Structures are given as C-alpha cells and as structure tokens.
C-alpha cells in the first residue's frame, strides 16, 4: 500500500472514529431512552431469583475485574438490588484479586442497609481466595476448607448467618460471575453436575456464545455483557448505569455500519468501472 493510499485511509478512519465518539457522547448528556427488548435468558435469570422463597441462601462467586467493570457494573447492581428486594440471604465470595474492591464499590452504591439488611445476619462477605476449578470443588464440599474467616477477619463460626452453612447442601442458588470465557465449565462441572445446585451466571458479552450451550438445562439463565445488564434493569424496574450505556452503544456503533456500507459501495463501483 503506497503511503498516499495509506494516508487517505487514515483520514477515513479518523472521520469514522470522531463520528463514533460524538454519537456515543450525545446520549450520555441527553438520554434518548431508545428501546431495549429483554431476551429470554435474562428473563429466566430474573425469574430464578424472583421465584426463590424469601430467606433462601444465595452464594455469589464473584470473579470480577475492575478494568472490565464498564461491561458488567449494570449486571451487578441490578442483581444485588433484586436479591435485597426479595429478601434473600447472600454470601459473597471473591475469586479474583479485584473482587473485594469491586464489591466494595458496588455495595456502597446499592447500600444493603437501606433494604433493612444487617451484615452477618442477612449478608456476608468472605473476601478473596484464588479459586480455580479445584477451589470451586473444595468450596462446594466444605466452605471452611477455603475460607475460615470473612473479609473483615471474623471467624466464620462467630457470624450468625454462617453458623449452619457448611457446603452445597445449605445453598439454594449459585450466582456465578466470571470473566474468562471457559470458566463457566468449572461451575457446570463442580456445582451443577456434581451437586445439582441451581445456577445462574453473569459474564462479559464476548463470553455469551460459550455460556449459551449450557442454557437452559445446566445454567438456568445468564447475563452476558452490558446489554444484558440493561435488560435486567428494565425487567426488574431498577434503573442503573446500563440504560445510558445501551443508549450510547445504539448510536455509537452506527458510523461503523455506515463505513462497512461505504467500503462495499466503493468496491462495487470500482469493479464496475474496471469492467
């Protein structure tokens, strides 16, 4: 490619990029409220939580990464709100280094106390332990083999909620959060196949295709990407950051499609000329 042609293309890229940026920016300042249809797997995800009897024990395996939060924060906030609204007892455990920090930021926003929740009685945070597949297996068999104390260093036996909770037998639902696409297999193998624990999953948009084959038989519902977060916000009636992201992505991607159209029109016109 000669340097002139290259320069011409670079100019085109820059026009497309600027157009994308402007179109992403506008809805953030001036929300448009464009429609978002709710997909089946998100409805099933929501209903799985909603249909739990009040006071069920929900374990949240939390493998979030702070750099990927834009993609997932809407999912998290909406899920925690649903859990608290339906008065479930929640056990959070972090499987990544960033997990506790992200959870901290999340809970500061959602404020469990505003739902009448008391730490230690209605929800508990178990801190961080690196849990690979073997770790998930160990946790499901015996929670205390992985965590002996909570995030704040209190022995699990001294926490009212944890007193009678030891293993998968005491857990009514697993919410499995992960960011490495193949990790869904760990939950399926170690919780679903091994113990038949009802499981729902939340992950990145690009991991959706790998989670789909397990739905709805092994995983009862799943959220993939920020769009799913928005859908959950809509279906649960809890507005959050997802709506703005959806709005912005609706518009922001349009220059990309126009570019694809343009390059093809140009190509076919060139071909006609050559003929």
């Amino acid at each position, binding site marked *: 490619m000669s340097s002139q042609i290259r320069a011409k293309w670079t100019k085109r890229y820059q026009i497309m990029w600027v157009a994308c940026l402007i179109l*992403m920016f506008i809805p953030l300042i001036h929300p448009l409220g464009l429609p978002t249809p709710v997909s089946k797997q998100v409805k099933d995800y929501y209903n799985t939580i909603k249909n739990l009897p009040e006071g069920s024990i929900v374990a949240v395996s939390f493998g979030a990464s702070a750099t990927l939060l834009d993609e997932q924060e809407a999912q998290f906030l909406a899920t925690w709100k649903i859990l608290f609204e339906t008065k479930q007892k929640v056990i959070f455990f972090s499987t990544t280094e960033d997990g506790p920090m992200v959870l901290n930021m999340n809970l500061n926003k959602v404020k469990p106390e505003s739902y009448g929740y008391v730490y230690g009685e209605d929800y508990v945070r178990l801190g961080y332990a690196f849990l690979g597949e073997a770790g998930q297996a160990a946790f499901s068999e015996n929670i205390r083999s992985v965590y002996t104390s909570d995030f704040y260093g209190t022995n699990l036996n001294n926490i009212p909620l944890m007193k009678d909770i030891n293993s998968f037998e005491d857990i009514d639902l697993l919410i499995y959060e992960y960011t490495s696409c193949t990790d869904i297999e760990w939950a399926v193998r170690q919780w679903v196949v091994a113990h038949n624990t009802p499981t729902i999953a939340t992950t*990145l*948009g690009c991991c959706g295709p790998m989670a789909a084959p397990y739905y709805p038989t092994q995983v009862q519902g799943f959220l993939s990407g920020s*769009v799913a977060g928005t859908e959950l916000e809509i279906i649960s009636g809890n507005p959050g950051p997802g709506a703005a992201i959806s709005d912005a*992505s609706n518009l922001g991607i349009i220059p990309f499609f126009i570019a694809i159209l343009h390059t093809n029109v140009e190509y076919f016109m060139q071909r006609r000329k050559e003929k």
Partner: protein
Amino acid sequence: MADILAGLVGTFFIVSVLSMLWKDNIVFRFGQACIIGASMAHYCFMNTQMVFTQGVIPLSQGKLTLVFPLLLGLLLYSRLNKDIAWLARYPTNFLIGVGSGLMIAGTLRGQIIDQVKQTIVDLFAGFASESPLDALNGVIILVGVITSLSFFIFTKEHKGAFGYITKIGRVFLMISLGANFAGELVWYLTQMIGRLMYILNQLIWPLLGMA
C-alpha cells in the same frame, strides 16, 4: 477537591492512551512512560511478596525442599552474563517440561476428545428434537467441523474436489472469525462508553457543580 484531582489524573491517562489514535504526541509518550513504570512496579511487588510468603518464610520454618525452586529461579539471572548463560537452561527446561506434560493432558481432553464428542452429541440431539431445523443444524455443524478440519491438511494441495471441501471449510472458519470479531467489538464499545462516563462523572459534572 480530592475527587476532582482523581478525575483529572484519570482523565489525563484516558486521553493519553486515546490520543495515539490521532497521531504520536508528547502526552501519549509521557503517559506510556508512566504506565510502564507503574506496571513493572506492581508486577515486581506482587511477585517479590510471593517469593517471601511462599518461599523464603516457609523455608526458614524448615520446609527445605523449597531450596530447589528458589535456587532454580536465581539461575535464570545467569542469562545476564554470556559466559554462564547456559545455567539458565536448568530452570527453563524444568518449566517447559512441566508445561508440556500439563499441556498434552489438558489439550487432549478438553480440545480434542470433548470437541469430537460434542459434535456427535449435537447431531443426535438435533435428530431427537421435534424441530427439523435442529437436525439440520446438527448436520451443518458436522459438515463444518469436517470441512474446516480438512482445511488444515498440509500434505495435499487444495485443488480439485478436495479444494472444494477446503473452500467450504474456509467459509465456516470465516463466519466464526466474524462472530468472534463482533463479540469483541461490542464489548470494546462498552468500554469506550464507560470511559466517557468516567470523564463526565468524575471530572466534567463535578467541575460544573452538577455532580
């Protein structure tokens, strides 16, 4: 004030990374110099801390077998002197040995046997389903796997009838690449919007007193 300072610092680095798309500039260069230092420091600190907590301290408490990995690790530094660089082959060969053993076992199961199995399962699940479309999908997957695998045959030129088979394989491969592309494109789009939201929420609204 402290929040605005944080917003300013964060925004500077966001702009620094993005500015490279326009052209090479001093803001980008300065930002990347900062981040390389920070990244190395984080990595060095985490690992050095681990060497102490999982190596040196247990060793001092009598776990003598840890001498081997600690010593092997130090041998990696022999590369810095050309005359004794061969010493680094000990740890390197050990690591690759462990890796290769692990790789053969894991790959065989997860990426070959499971994939073959799933292809057959998909086909027969399709046949068992009431919808004829599911059966068709099962057949498409089987054809796709066979033709795309054939594309990777190197001992035969892709000509004649075999050429057509590999051509079909290429089409499947390309659709798959397109789908992977789209998954990541939309994810990265969200990341960009997230950064714009950060700039708005952490810097612009607070500066305008609209937080």
